[in-house]
């Protein structure tokens, strides 16, 4: 429990029961909740319930952690130690009459959104949301447009959003980044804002970005060989026909998170020499040394691919940037792959953060990852 909540508990014990609700009201009106004091975080929930619990996704901690009720009040609390730079997403599970409802923290306005909805967010005192991920009025905005192309690999028509930097010119050739789950990167990880800002500052060159999506990502991104065919035989030629791009692996990259990172790595492995740069975020790189995995059947092709990659990594790219959160179960797999990736690429960088398997973790790593793989003219440009 944080010192502030301990003090509240002491004061509650010193007043008559009838005065306790007002004391809690005053405490909540004056405090940001969750209460963060140094490494100590206290989560609060107020109301009548049979049980209240903190739900989080920190690997290694039990996923549901019970709140306790302050005596003779309707205020519930749960205390946790959080590392200084950590960022954590959570919900509060409230059980009444046998029914459990997962809620946002009503006292905490900070929410992180993802395709499944939103989670409440708390962070340690040293964590800062990056300024470069917020809109900058001085940064010229790139344009988004959508193309449709017939995919031979999948036998259907695919839509791809394209980000063209404000400095896109037909007279100039631009590097290309292909992003898996691209619309989600835009929606939940501020990708286009980040591109606008970093290109404006010269930290990135004027980069063309293809924002791809899959109608069935758990199949197509799970090392499906058709996906490599789609990117290399359908999408790349179409982009080169329509846009002014540098025709070199050194000016091409793939970005993906989770299963998207598997899709990126498997594409680079199946088609060596096409993409010079990989950014792999929280890759779902499950593998087995002995026996079978226990993650469910959708992981079967992933595990088969990663096992095959581990047996024969080949040469996959010039540069590979790997990121993973230390609160993820996948951190073990990602760390384990680094020595192998170092044999399969000229340069490998690995960055961990005290965060989970979520979009804001992936957002927070983008500046370092993108500016390393596609360095801009920062040192030379003074507008």
């Amino acid at each position: 429990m944080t010192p502030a909540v301990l003090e509240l508990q002491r004061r509650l014990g010193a007043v008559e029961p009838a005065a306790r609700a007002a004391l809690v009201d005053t405490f909540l009106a004056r405090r940001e909740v969750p209460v963060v004091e140094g490494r100590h975080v206290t989560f609060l929930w107020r109301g009548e319930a049979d049980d209240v619990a903190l739900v989080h996704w920190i690997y290694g901690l039990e996923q549901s952690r019970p709140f306790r009720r302050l005596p003779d009040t309707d205020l519930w609390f749960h205390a946790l130690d959080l590392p200084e730079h950590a960022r954590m997403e959570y919900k509060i599970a409230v059980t009444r009459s046998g029914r459990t409802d997962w809620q946002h923290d009503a006292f905490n306005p900070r929410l992180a959104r993802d395709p499944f909805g939103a989670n409440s967010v708390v962070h340690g005192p040293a964590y800062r949301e990056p300024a470069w991920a917020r809109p900058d009025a001085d940064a010229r905005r790139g344009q988004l447009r959508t193309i449709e192309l017939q995919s031979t690999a999948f036998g259907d028509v695919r839509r791809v959003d394209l980000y063209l930097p404000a400095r896109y010119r037909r007279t100039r050739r631009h590097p290309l980044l292909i992003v898996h789950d691209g619309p989600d990167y835009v929606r939940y990880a501020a990708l286009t804002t980040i591109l606008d800002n970093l290109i404006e500052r010269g930290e990135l060159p004027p980069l063309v970005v293809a924002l791809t999506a899959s109608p069935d990502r758990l199949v197509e991104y799970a090392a499906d060989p058709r996906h490599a065919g789609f990117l290399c035989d359908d999408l790349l030629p179409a982009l080169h026909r329509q846009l002014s791009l540098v025709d070199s692996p050194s000016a091409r990259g793939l970005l993906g998170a989770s299963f998207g990172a598997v899709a990126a790595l498997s594409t680079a492995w199946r088609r060596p020499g096409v993409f010079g740069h990989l950014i792999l975020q929280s890759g779902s790189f499950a593998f087995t040394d002995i026996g079978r995995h226990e993650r469910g059947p959708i992981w079967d092709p992933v595990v088969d691919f990663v096992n095959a990659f581990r047996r024969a990594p080949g040469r996959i790219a010039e540069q590979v940037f790997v990121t993973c959160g230390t609160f993820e179960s996948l951190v073990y797999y990602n760390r384990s792959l680094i020595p192998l990736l170092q044999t399969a690429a000229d340069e490998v960088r690995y960055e961990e953060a005290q965060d989970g398997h979520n979009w804001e973790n992936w957002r927070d790593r983008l500046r370092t990852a993108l500016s390393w793989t596609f360095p801009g003219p920062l040192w030379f440009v003074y507008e």
Partner: protein
Amino acid sequence: MTASSVVLLGPQGTVPRVRDALRDLGVREPVAIVTAGWEERERELLPFMKHVELPVRNLDVFRRAEVVYGRDPDLHAAMRKRHDRVRAQQRLYRARLAHALDAARESLARSDAPPGLLAADRRDAIDAIRRLDAFHLARVDEIELEFELGVRPAERPAVALHRARIRERLAGCRALCIAGGHVGILVNRMRLLGVLDAHLSLPGDRPIVAWSAGAMALASRVVLFHDHPPQGAGNAEVFRAGLGIAPGIVPLPHADRRLALADRARVALFAARFAPDACVVLNAGARLDLRAGDWHATPDTLRLAPDGSLGPVQEVA
């Protein structure tokens, strides 16, 4: 080379001051502009033309250089070879510079020796950086000289043609403006096409107004800087000699965004390293005038002081 009047300004994006500068200089006639630092956006001049409210003649320096390279492949190949050699030299310099700067920072942070010994140690650590900067600059000058003597760019027909056209265009203008952008491209292409020589050889008082990278290009040496880049240590480095008509200063455009100005140790080392030149903070709104050999700055135009603070330019100019 000297120019009778030179005005250096900070970035023009949010606080444009070029019109004021031209009016103060009594310029009422057409002005020429170099926007080669904008590269492929060189001709996107409408906002500038609206701002200055004067006829503007673009010297098309970026485009002309592209045309020259297309017509003279041997020159282009020689330029690329020179570029590769400069980059190789820059890598060598950068590796040694990191150690020299670390040593100086360690010396400046120490307090475990008698003051007299520490002072001597710090002086020598800073001198080591200055010697390295000077060595690098000399090596790049040699590479430039080899290129000039080997290729003789000014005598090549494609170059001579565009030099002549630039001179003609300049002759009809009362002042020369030099915009920011990519400082390497700006210096290289202005030098190739002899823009400054042509301007300074014309009769009468023809002022120069330059901002951001344009200001950096006019100094004696071009210093690249960024204290918190996304990659690397953020060690300021000498790039090459500048065009040399703004002596005695190191212009630092966007210093508020690019330098840790509150870090007194870092500011003090920067100032000491480039002394006696004054490291001038050219933020938006800043202005520095060179008249009859003396610099005159607006009160809000500051320089990095040896004690790590920001002080008025006049004190060191």
